[in-house]
Structure formats: C-alpha cells, structure tokens
C-alpha cells in the first residue's frame, strides 16, 4: 500500500470514528475562497471601507463580566485599565501580539478572540476588513472622538472612521545611547550607522518586515514605502543581508527595554519606544543617555483601536475607546506607554512642558509638521506582499 493510500485510509477511518463531524465541516469550508482584492486606501486614493454588518444599537447597557483586549506588550497603562475596571465594574484581560501578520493570522484561525484590538495600523487594516473581522463603530458611545487630532478624524485608510479610532502617533528612526554614540554619527546618511561593523553585536532592528525593509529602501534613496517594484524590494533584501553580515543584529521589538538596560547601543525603532524606555532606565542612570535620530524623510503614522465583529462585550469595547480618547486618561496612559496620544489637545509643547522629556529626546517627538511630511505606509496587494515577505525571510533566515 502506498504512503498516500495509507494516509487517506487513515484519515477516512479515524475521521469517521472520532471527529467525523468537524472533519466534514472543515472539508466543506476549505473550498471557499474569497474573490476580489483588498480595499486599500492611500493618501492619494482615500477609501470608504465596505461594511457588512450594522454597528451596535444606541444606548445599550454595559456588559458585565470580562473585556478582552489584544494589544502589543506594554502598550497600555495598567493603572488606566484599573481605573476603567473600577468605573465600569468589569474585568479586563489582555493578550499580546508581536507582529501584525501573526495577529491577523491568529485572529483568522481563532487563536485570539478579543473584543478590542489596540495598536493595529493601516498596513493590516485591509486584511482585517477582507477577513470580515471588524465591526463598524457606533460613535454615540464615543463622544471623545472629537478630541482626536483633526487631521485624523477622517483618515485616508478609513474615511468617516467607520472602524477605527486613532490611538498613538510615532515616526520611524534610530534610537541610540548618547553615552556611546555621538549625535554627529548621523550627520551624513544617518541610516549608514546601522551598517557600521563597529556596532556589531550591539545593534537591533525592528521585527517588522514593512518597517525594516522600508528603512533599507530609504537608505538607498527609494522613498516609496509601498513599492511593488521587484528590483527595489530585492535590493532592500540584499542590503539587509549585508547589514546582517556586517553587524550581526537582533531583530525584535524590545528597544524600549534593551536600550535603557545598556544591552545595545543602537536600534532602528519607533520613536515612541524611546519615551517608554525612560521608565526602564536602571536606578542612577540619567535620562539623557537616550537619544533618537529622526530622519528627514521617514514613515510617520498612527495606529488605532478597533472592535472585533465577534466581540462578546462590544459596548465595553466602545467605552474603553472613549475612555482612552479622553485627554486626562490619555495623559495617564502615556505616562506608562510613552507614545504620543493621537489627541489634538496633547501637543508637543504640552509634553515638553511636563518636564518628563529629556533634551536628547525632543527630536523623537512627532510635531504636526513632521507628521505631515511623513511617508505613508499602507496595506500591500498580496503579490507585492509576497515579494516583501520573501526578502524578509531571506534576511531573518540568516
């Protein structure tokens, strides 16, 4: 009996005896594939996303019980959550994700079943919508929506903010230790420092294929962070392989812990991580050991909060969005998270005057001018995405 026949027999017999039902269900479901492409909004072509369900009705009571959040690690202040729990008489639990792709894959296969997703960006939004994982928001629960930065109240990726409310804003750049690297090191093409062998073993990049490959493209003078040009993508892959050989980098999202701990000198990362890092400084280390190089041309963007279609506590999820969009609550949340809340009232001047930001990190703040000059980073069509991922695998496979 051939191996194939054996496998088939095995599946048929065991499936029939034990889990026949779900086996058949799975077989039936697997043949359907959605047709059509992704709904991708860009600054040039803003998009109103398709809606397949109604938002929840007005004036529903808050659910009692548990609200489950899916979020990045250390991306919400436990104190803020405790206040919310007390105010709404509920329990909040949080699951953690490390990359957008993994989060989307796990939302699709049912590993994660949260009510509320925090920190997702528009590079993942098209897939979330295509997989029909989100529900439209009912703004009557979110009166604080008016606090959001006015330019982000009708974003290109989600016109009329049907699904999303902005959470934090940030830009991509290089965090470094001012006690080990001079500011002038970034004078020329600042990205070149990441290829400098003298930082071998003390250097890290973001574990985000879109951000890190785009960085390599910017260094080479290609400023389209959504390119579908195979040659440009391959070149970025080549350059990252060269970087790997020159500096033996780590690839993670731990800049906010490892830079203050002194475990590395230089880290391509999100600007907000440097403010998170402040509270991870060991006792007795001054905050100005942390520095940030904010490139002239780089990605600047916001992430957002959204409610899942399968949410068991959609009203509480709306309430938490509203809660975090309140200025005072957002400031408290920022004390722990460090990132800049995407609220109009929380200006760069306000943050500087709070006295918590050392001189060396003022450059890491995203001003409205920097935000407007930022390069957009949007969802990719699957074919282009495959090219990006292929180069990324080449780099991470070492």
């Amino acid at each position: 009996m051939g191996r194939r026949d054996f496998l088939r027999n095995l599946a048929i017999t065991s499936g029939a005896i034990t889990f026949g039902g779900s086996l058949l269900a799975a077989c039936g479901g697997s043949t359907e594939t959605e047709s059509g492409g992704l709904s991708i909004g860009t600054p040039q072509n803003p998009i109103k996303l398709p809606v397949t369900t109604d938002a929840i009705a007005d004036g529903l009571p808050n659910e009692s019980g548990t609200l489950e959040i899916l979020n990045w690690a250390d991306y919400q202040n436990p104190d803020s959550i405790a206040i919310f729990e007390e105010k709404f008489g509920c329990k909040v639990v949080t699951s953690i994700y490390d990359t957008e792709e993994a989060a989307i894959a796990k939302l699709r296969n049912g590993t994660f079943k949260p009510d509320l997703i925090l920190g997702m960006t528009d590079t993942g939004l098209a897939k979330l919508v295509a997989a029909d994982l989100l529900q439209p928001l009912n703004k009557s629960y979110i009166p604080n929506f008016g606090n959001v930065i006015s330019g982000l109240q009708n974003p290109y990726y989600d016109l009329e903010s049907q699904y999303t409310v902005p959470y934090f804003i940030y830009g991509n750049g290089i965090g470094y230790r001012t006690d080990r690297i001079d500011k002038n090191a970034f004078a020329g093409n600042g990205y070149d420092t990441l290829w400098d062998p003298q930082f071998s073993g003390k250097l890290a990049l973001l574990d985000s294929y879109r951000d890190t490959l785009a960085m390599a493209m910017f260094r080479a003078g290609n400023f389209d962070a959504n390119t579908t040009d195979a040659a440009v993508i391959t070149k970025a892959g080549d350059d990252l392989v060269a970087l790997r050989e020159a500096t033996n980098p780590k690839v993670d999202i731990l800049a906010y812990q490892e830079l203050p701990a002194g475990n590395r000198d230089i880290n391509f990362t999100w600007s907000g991580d440097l403010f998170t890092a402040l509270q991870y400084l060991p006792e007795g280390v001054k905050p100005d050991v942390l520095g940030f190089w904010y490139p002239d041309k780089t990605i600047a963007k916001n992430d957002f909060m959204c409610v899942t279609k399968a949410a068991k506590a959609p009203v509480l999820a709306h309430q938490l969005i509203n809660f975090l969009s309140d200025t005072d609550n957002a400031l408290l949340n920022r004390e722990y998270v460090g990132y800049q809340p995407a609220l109009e009232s929380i200006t760069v001047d306000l943050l500087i005057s709070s006295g918590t930001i050392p001189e060396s990190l003022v450059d890491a703040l995203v001003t409205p001018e920097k935000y407007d000059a930022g390069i957009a980073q949007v969802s990719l069509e699957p074919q282009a995405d495959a090219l990006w991922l292929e180069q990324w695998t080449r780099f991470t496979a070492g």
Partner: protein
Amino acid sequence: MLFGSNSGRVSPQDKLKKSPRLWAGFAFPGTIWLIALFALPFYAVACIAFGTIDPIFRDAVPQWNPLSWDFTQARQVLTSLATGPLRGVGLRTIVYVFCAMTLCFVVGFPIAYFLARHAGKRKMMLLVLIIVPFWVNYLMRMLAWVNLLSVDGLFTRFMRIFGINYNWLDGSPITVTLGLVYGYIPFLILPLFATLDRLDWRLIDAARDLGANSRQAFRLVTLPMSRAGLVAAGVLIALPMFGDYYTNDLLSRSPSTEMIGNQIDFFLNASSQPQNGALLVLTLSLFLLLLMSFYLRSTRQQSRQVTR
C-alpha cells in the same frame, strides 16, 4: 527505556495471550487517541504543506484529497533548503546539534563513568545531585543563564576580571551551543549512567588481568559493551535539539544563529505563511526518520556481529 529490547514478551503458550479481544479492548482507547491526535495531525500537516495558497491572505488552504496535492511550494522550500536562504539554517542546525552533542558526551561520559564505577559510598548522594537539574524547569535554567550573561550579569563581570569582554547574549553561536549543552546534558547523563551501571565490570577487570592497560580495556571492552546505550542516549538528546528554538530565542534572538526550529516557529506562529512551516515540519520529520532508521540498522548490524 526507549529502545530497550522486548524482553518482556512472554512465551506463546502463555495463558494470558488467550484472550486477544480483551487485550485489544484495553489498547483500544489509547490507540484511537493516538491515531486521532498523533497520526492524523501528520496528515493535516501534509494537507497544508501540499495545499494551495489563499490569494488574499497568503494563508495556506489545505488540500484534503492527496490525489490533488500540489508540490509547487514544496519544491520551492526544498530548493531554498538546498541552495537558497534556508540552506544556512539547515547547515547551522546540524553543526550546532553536532557540536552540542559532542560536548555533552565529552562532559557527560566521564561523569556517568565515574558515577557507575568509582563513586563508592557517595554514589547515592552524587546521583541525587545530578538528578536535580533534571527536575528544574528548562526555562528556569535558561533564565538563570540569561541573568548571568547579560551586560551587567555576574558571569560577564567575572569574565571581565580576566579581560574578556564579550557580548554573550548578542547572537553568539558559542552561547547558543553551550546553552544547548547545559539544557540537554542531564538527559544524556542519566541514560548513560544506567547503561554503564549495568555493565559487568568483572569483564573489564578480567581484561586488565590478561594484560590490557586501562586505555586498551576501555577501548576494547567498556566501549563496545556500552555502545548501544551510548547511541541510544545520544539519539535521545539529538531529537529534541533538532527541534529546539527556545534556547536560541532566549540566548540570542539574532538571525545569524537561527535554527530550523526557529523557522518553523516563525512560519507557523508569527507569519502569514503557515505552508512553509508545515513543509519544514515534514522535512525535519523525514530527516529525523532517516537518522533513526540509520541508527536502528546500525544497532541491528551490531547485534548480528555480536551474536556471530
């Protein structure tokens, strides 16, 4: 324990053999369990590996009918393993496991030997001390080393006294290999000890009496007698090492020390392309199956030689 002979087989005349239905009934629930949750999953892996790819999410779409399996992606992954980016990962995995195994034997064999042969009255106490790490959680032991090896860790500071300033936790192959040794050596020493402890040392004494020096006695008597146990113990730690990814993740997290397990973990848990993960799982399983059959053949040959 693992590859022990089936010496427990009782003679065919045994009365207990007479009620096959009863015994089959005893084995039935466990067998069904293993078919459903051990054998069937391999079929599921194959259906993902040889399935198609969702055009939008790049996610794998399983193909449940083996007759329509698609091998395009399999060919790509195999090419990548042979000549492409995954080649380095595969080779590195083999090199790390080989080095770690060698070190495990270099350190573990003398310990097991001493324990079995020369420990005397302290045998029990030493045995207990050696079994302790066996019972300490693997991640706890890695955590201990992460603490010691970090930039201001005790070990790093200690080594600085000798002028050695090394970033132990920054993608160092040395750290990863030593981490594997530290993690798996308890699982080698115990079976080694069990093998050596059962040896008939009188034979070695006899060899010495007949004029062999200690080295000769070791090479000509001890080693051949304990060979099967040695190989079994080696296999016992080699298998999990080939699938290890967490040691590497905790002690390095750098692309330059990426092992095959990391790639499987990445593709299945952190990427949108589980099909590649499924293909690597199949490849790893086949590779280990080959190693196993090689091992089984060599032990069979060996036992044939012994009986001759």
